[in-house]
């Protein structure tokens, strides 16, 4: 009975896959080649037996439909098993090995099809987009499905257990790395407040760092987000916006109604609704904006920056010390810690807390929490849903107390770019407002700029420009005038690019901030405009500040020689008719600088494609933070080592809620690991089919004992690497002795094959609550 059949038990997925058009097979003379629109592997389709099998599958589908009015969804043959899904006149057929459990194969097919639907709507939609050209349709399917299918198949072959569970790869952060998750979450939340943004996720090195999406959506987004633009199966939307950098792409996606409603709900909770947020503040630029419309300041990012500063307590003890010095709940505090590049320095001109802010419930406003520096659990700020709700209940208004030095503004002037130089961070077509930044950086590297301390006037000008270009100018300033902590902060990104993340921290030293907390409800009740609190505690109307900011823009612009106006952007193409019945059209925003490991992927409403201002604000605001995050994560990430004892076992711990898996079994390299994978597959299938089953123990003929346990959202599997040996009771006598021996072996409980000792030991070592 020995056979190598087990070795193929897990290479079972993806024997073949094809799509056929039922309407192309009406008459007897119709050819199967015309009906099958896509077959993978393509090179096998010319084989007569393959074509015959395809035609039989199509035929039996029709036959059974005629018999019972229902189409088959599982066809089990002697050597293969097929699962089918149908869309209009099309049928999609995925083949696996006969040993594949039905439920798992069906789920894989569904996952594959859902992925296609997410990016293309439907097969009919693709045909419509191809203007009903059959050849173009076939070519498109070939192009698209080949990649989707390969994605699934590759992952199956290389990471068998992971694919079995439909796992999403998350960045495995160290224990002290929670702040990176927090920061990523904050970036997402601030992005979510933009117009039209529904939710998103951030990837680091093709793994998810933080996500606001459901696991299913995250998995779908991940397929595109972790690929380069050229590798993605669809072409990005041509927005017609000249200011959009090349590393940002927008793709049409299709969300089911329930998915869309869920995301819209998330967005409402995240506080995207109030449009009186400081996004209304026009940008203050020392160079003329190329944008035809006023570009909003990334004030939410600024708020984020404040939060980051406040959260720097996670990185250094100085913040907590600072907060101890200044327990005021709203006082913008600046901590300074020379040893920590991430620490922020306290502004000596920080205004006193406003009484109004003091009255506020500390948990009512994220900003207030941040400002007072109270140690609030990180997870509470981002990781839990109630905090999102807290955030949406308050409107954070952040204004810079701008001190414009018109005359010295020119100090910042740097040689104008002669060409569209690539950003070190990755953008290929940065707006002209950043030209100076990168040139300044280049100058800094050439030693043309003086240290900040040696050029006070320049510092002043930097201060003024920081107030309006908080994020972007940080690049300039950090390069032009190195901070005293530069040596400590000269981390480079993996791509060798010096990022601005740490520089920003000292830039913010020079920024005097005002945190104005205004409740929307309160505003509505009082009918008053929100007020601005000056550093000195003076209160002025926001309008005044806006006016001052406007003046600053004007004066700054006047003090400079404006660059030649860029050619007007081409008119955006008319939005394509992407409507698919049952789906909501949306947009997938992917920001993936070429030389960066960080990817920001956001799901947005269709209107985002035409919203230049929001787009610009999105990428301008998030780019430096993401770069900052990348450096920090890379520096802190070390390979997580499992305890040595774990190597004695195969194990897999699956979190069904987060779709995460911790395992040390990836390939079926030997019989023991094959047994583990096989047992895991069987047990997982059992848990899927029968939710009342809580734990299963299997012992194979080979002696391997595999154990699986299923709780609400968690599944744990393990197996000893060494084959278990069933105890053999030696007895030479016939009956009485044999009986005694059997009783003795019964006492030991081992000959029954359930290796309790190993299981308990493993449970102990892994810390799993098995029993």
């Amino acid at each position, binding site marked *: 009975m020995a*056979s190598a059949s087990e070795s193929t038990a897990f290479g079972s997925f993806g024997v073949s896959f094809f799509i056929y058009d039922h309407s192309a097979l009406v008459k007897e003379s119709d050819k199967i080649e015309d009906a099958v629109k896509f077959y993978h592997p393509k090179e096998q389709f010319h084989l007569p037996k393959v074509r015959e099998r395809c035609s039989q599958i199509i035929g039996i589908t029709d036959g059974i439909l005629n018999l019972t009015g229902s189409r088959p969804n599982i066809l089990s043959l002697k050597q293969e098993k097929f699962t089918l899904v149908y869309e209009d006149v099309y049928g999609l057929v995925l083949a696996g090995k006969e040993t594949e459990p039905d439920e798992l194969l069906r789920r894989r097919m569904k996952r594959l099809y859902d992925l296609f639907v997410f990016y293309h709507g439907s097969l009919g939609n693709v045909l419509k987009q191809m203007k009903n050209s059959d050849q173009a349709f076939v070519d498109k399917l070939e192009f698209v499905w080949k990649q989707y299918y390969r994605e699934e198949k590759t992952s199956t072959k290389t990471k068998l257990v992971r694919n079995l569970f439909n796992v999403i790869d998350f960045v495995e952060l160290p224990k002290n790395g929670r702040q990176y998750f927090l920061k990523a979450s904050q970036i997402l939340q601030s992005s979510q407040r933009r117009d039209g943004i529904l939710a998103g996720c951030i990837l680091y090195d093709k793994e998810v760092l933080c996500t606001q999406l459901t696991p299913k959506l995250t998995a779908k987004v991940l397929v595109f987000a972790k690929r380069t633009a050229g590798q993605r199966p669809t072409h990005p939307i041509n927005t017609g916006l000249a200011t959009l950098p090349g590393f940002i792409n927008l793709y049409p996606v299709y969300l089911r109604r329930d998915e869309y409603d869920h995301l819209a709900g998330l967005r409402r909770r995240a506080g995207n609704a109030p449009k009186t947020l400081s996004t209304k503040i026009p940008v203050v630029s020392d160079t003329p904006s190329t944008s035809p419309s006023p570009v909003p300041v990334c004030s939410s990012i600024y708020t984020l920056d404040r939060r980051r500063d406040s959260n720097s307590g996670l990185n250094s003890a100085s913040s907590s010390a600072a907060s101890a010095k200044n327990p005021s709940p709203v006082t913008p505090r600046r901590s300074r810690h020379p040893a920590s590049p991430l620490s922020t320095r306290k502004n000596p001109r920080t205004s006193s807390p406003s009484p109004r802010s003091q009255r506020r419930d500390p948990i009512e406003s994220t900003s207030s929490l941040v400002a007072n520096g109270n140690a609030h659990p990180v997870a509470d700020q981002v990781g839990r849903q109630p905090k999102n709700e807290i955030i949406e209940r308050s409107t954070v208004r952040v204004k810079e107390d701008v001190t414009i030095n018109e005359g010295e503004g020119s100090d910042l002037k740097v040689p104008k770019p002669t060409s569209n130089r690539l950003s070190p961070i990755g953008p290929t077509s940065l707006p002209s407002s950043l030209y100076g930044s990168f040139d300044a950086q280049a100058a800094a590297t050439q030693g043309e700029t003086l240290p900040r301390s040696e050029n006070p006037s320049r510092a002043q000008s930097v201060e003024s420009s920081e107030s309006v270009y908080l994020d972007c100018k940080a690049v300039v300033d950090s390069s032009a005038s190195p901070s005293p902590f530069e040596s400590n902060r000269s981390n480079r990104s993996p791509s060798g690019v010096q990022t601005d993340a740490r520089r920003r921290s000292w830039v913010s030293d020079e920024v005097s901030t005002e945190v104005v907390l205004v409740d929307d409800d309160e505003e509505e009740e009082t009918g008053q405009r929100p007020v601005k609190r000056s550093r000195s505690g003076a209160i002025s109307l926001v309008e005044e500040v806006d006016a001052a900011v406007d003046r600053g823009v004007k004066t700054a612009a006047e003090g400079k020689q404006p660059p030649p106006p860029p050619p007007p952007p081409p008119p955006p193409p008319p939005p394509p008719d992407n409507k698919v019945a049952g789906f909501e059209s949306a947009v997938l925003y992917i920001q993936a600088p070429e030389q960066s490991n960080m990817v920001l992927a956001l799901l947005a409403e269709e209107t985002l494609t035409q919203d230049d201002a929001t787009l610009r604000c999105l990428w301008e605001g998030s780019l430096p933070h993401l770069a900052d995050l990348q450096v920090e994560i890379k520096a802190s990430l070390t390979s997580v080592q499992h305890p040595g004892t774990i190597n004695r076992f195969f194990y897999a711990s699956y979190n069904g809620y987060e779709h995460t898996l911790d395992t040390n079994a990836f390939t079926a390299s030997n019989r023991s690991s094959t047994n583990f994978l096989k047992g895991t597959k069987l047990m997982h299938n059992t848990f899927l089919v029968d939710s009342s089953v809580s734990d299963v123990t299997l012992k194979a003929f080979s002696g391997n004992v595999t154990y699986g346990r299923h709780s609400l959202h968690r599944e744990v599997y393990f197996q000893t690497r060494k084959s278990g040996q069933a105890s053999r009771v030696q007895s030479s006598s016939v009956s009485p002795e044999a009986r005694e021996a059997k009783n003795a072996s019964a006492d030991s409980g081992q000959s029954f094959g359930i290796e309790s000792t190993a299981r308990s030991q493993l449970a102990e070592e892994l810390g799993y609550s098995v029993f």
Partner: protein
Amino acid sequence: MKCFVALSSTPDVIFFDADTPFKTLIKEKAKKLGQDEQDQDEQGVNLQVVGQYFAPLFASFQVLLTAGNAYNSIKSEDGTTYVFHLFGEVTCIALCGDGDEDEDFLKRKTLAFQSFVGFFYGPVNEELKPSSVAEKNYRWKFLSKLLRQWSELTKTEQAFLTEATEQLIVKNELNAHYIKLLEESLKAISRLEDITAVHGLLLVGTRLLALFSSRAAMELNPSDILLINLVAYSTFPPPSPKLATPPPDLESRGVAFETPRPDADEIFYSPIATPVLSDPIFSGPRYSTPNVSTSGNPGSRLGSFTEADYKSISEDDQMTSADPEVENFLKGGSLPNFSSEHFSDARRQFLGRRPSLPALKEDSEDEENPEFSKKDRETFVRHKVFLKTGHCPFTPYVLHCIEIAPGIVLAVVSEIPSAQVATLICHALSFLSPLLNVIDAPMGQELGRVHVKSAMTALEDSHRRIAESARRNRKTSRIADKVRKELPLRWERLKEKGLQSFLENIVEDSSIRPMTVDPEMENATSQLVNMLHAYFKYLYFKKTKSLTDELCIEKVLAVFKDLEGDYLLAKALKNVPAIHYQQKFPGLVHFIYVDRMTNQLTAPSLDVTGGEDENAWLHQHLRKNVWRHWTNFRRLLSQGYMSASVRDSHFLYSYQLWCEDQTGSVLSWDSSSSFVRDLRPPSVISVKFYKDLLSTGYWKGQPGVAVHCYEMMCVHVGVVSTEHAAKQSKKLASRLWDESAVNSPANLL
């Protein structure tokens, strides 16, 4: 919606059984097609429409079969499941659309159907649809009833769930008494009827009370015991539990609450003392018990032809030789179907001694009135059956079922003359029939294992001996004469077409799969197979001597006049009381213990109250889950897992298959050998799963030593840990092993 259909290669519907919803569907389809209602058969269904209905499935199945990758099953979006199964040239399609029967069950159903066909018709599958409409209706109705009964019993009885024989446990004295009665009854039958009764089984419901086999008899195969049990139960169903009021003085009448240990002198007649597996590997000293021949006429031995055998054939051939179909065959036509006249005679045989109460009527009455009513029932039926013996898969016998008391049946198996020729014919067919189908991988491996030259020599010898037997019958039978003349010619023609080289190709190049024979060779093979089938039918599907004397039946009934039927029926309701084990093993709720050596089941009875007490829901829940998990464990077993435990809501279910040597030491599987997954569900009736499992030689033990296989499933309460359950299961197994009579030291005396 359920349906079971068997199609020939034509395709022609050779068996059809369906429930009312499916029949309605077919009728509606027939209306749409404009089919005449007059074409409907007895079931009210137009078989042409049925054939059209399944034609697309059959056609697709055949096309893929040619490629060696035929359908196993199809599941539809609405939950309808289709299961395909091919045996010989018969394609079975089982359909279930109401979710009552899942894929595994339907697979077992098709395998069970194959067993029924083999049991009643041997290798001649065409007998499923004789040309006589009346005979066809009778046979279909009988098989449908059997199939439905099997389905019902598999869903309700643990014996049929596990496909093992459940012994009715009574006091040792009673057991010895019943065995003695069996011996007497067999003697009486043999004395009065001049037939050789070799096996006697006393059945109470689905439980075996006693089994007696004559010394010279071939061993009864476990699957044959199950099928005999099924036939007896189906023909004489016991009264419902509601009607059978248990006597109040059960204890006083000897209800044993402990498994009895028979005395030394009773061991000899114990039902489990009969060797049930013919494989030498099963015949260890511990289990080998000599049989007693109570018959003075042991009958002819296999492998030796006697003149008396041929004489007997000649006598019966006088009647059948005038059959027009036989005439047609003699003129060179295809395989003949026996005429209605011929089968009307056979039907009378089937119906037994009371022609005034036709069996068809009896069946319909049974369906309408499941409750027992003796006056409307037959007390005797007879079937020609083909049992599996060590030498031949279809050894002809006659099965007589006599109802001793309501729910208690005596089954007597008697030999028929000239059974030796069946061995020769079956041997030839076992080589030739596969050539008519697509030779897939398993078949190729099977053929590839044979030594071609020796196989050809054996085939040559078989054909020579078959022709010789036909020569002896030529004067009395035109069929025999034709066989005598043409069989050697057709065999020579097949050899000329390259049979030997074809077999050698299979052996040498096992990678060529699937493959088919060339048309010329296929034609020659087909002609030869047809001739062998015809001769088999001539020999064994005809009137033979059997139990016909009413006096004989009365004598038999007189032997069992003192049988305490009420007591036995009451005892059968609660054969093994669970409470006894539950007290000894705290936490234990239920168990199923099967000794695959003797294929005996030991399990407490489940839900005897019929769900009327306050704990009915618990019984229902337990029963449902025991069935579900046993099926799951079987599936795991076929995938290479010998042990499993599942904690499911309130209970912990554990299953274990293990093997022991003669000393009772647990044997381990050779870890260097992997287990090959068998797509067929482990089965005793139709699949040699356990036999194959034990004959692999991968169990670590002394070579050549008999290996004994056991299965046990335990149900514990959910709070019990797996370790505790494992220990307790082992202790329980030891206890049951001790209590088993066959393992007693006294057995060795």
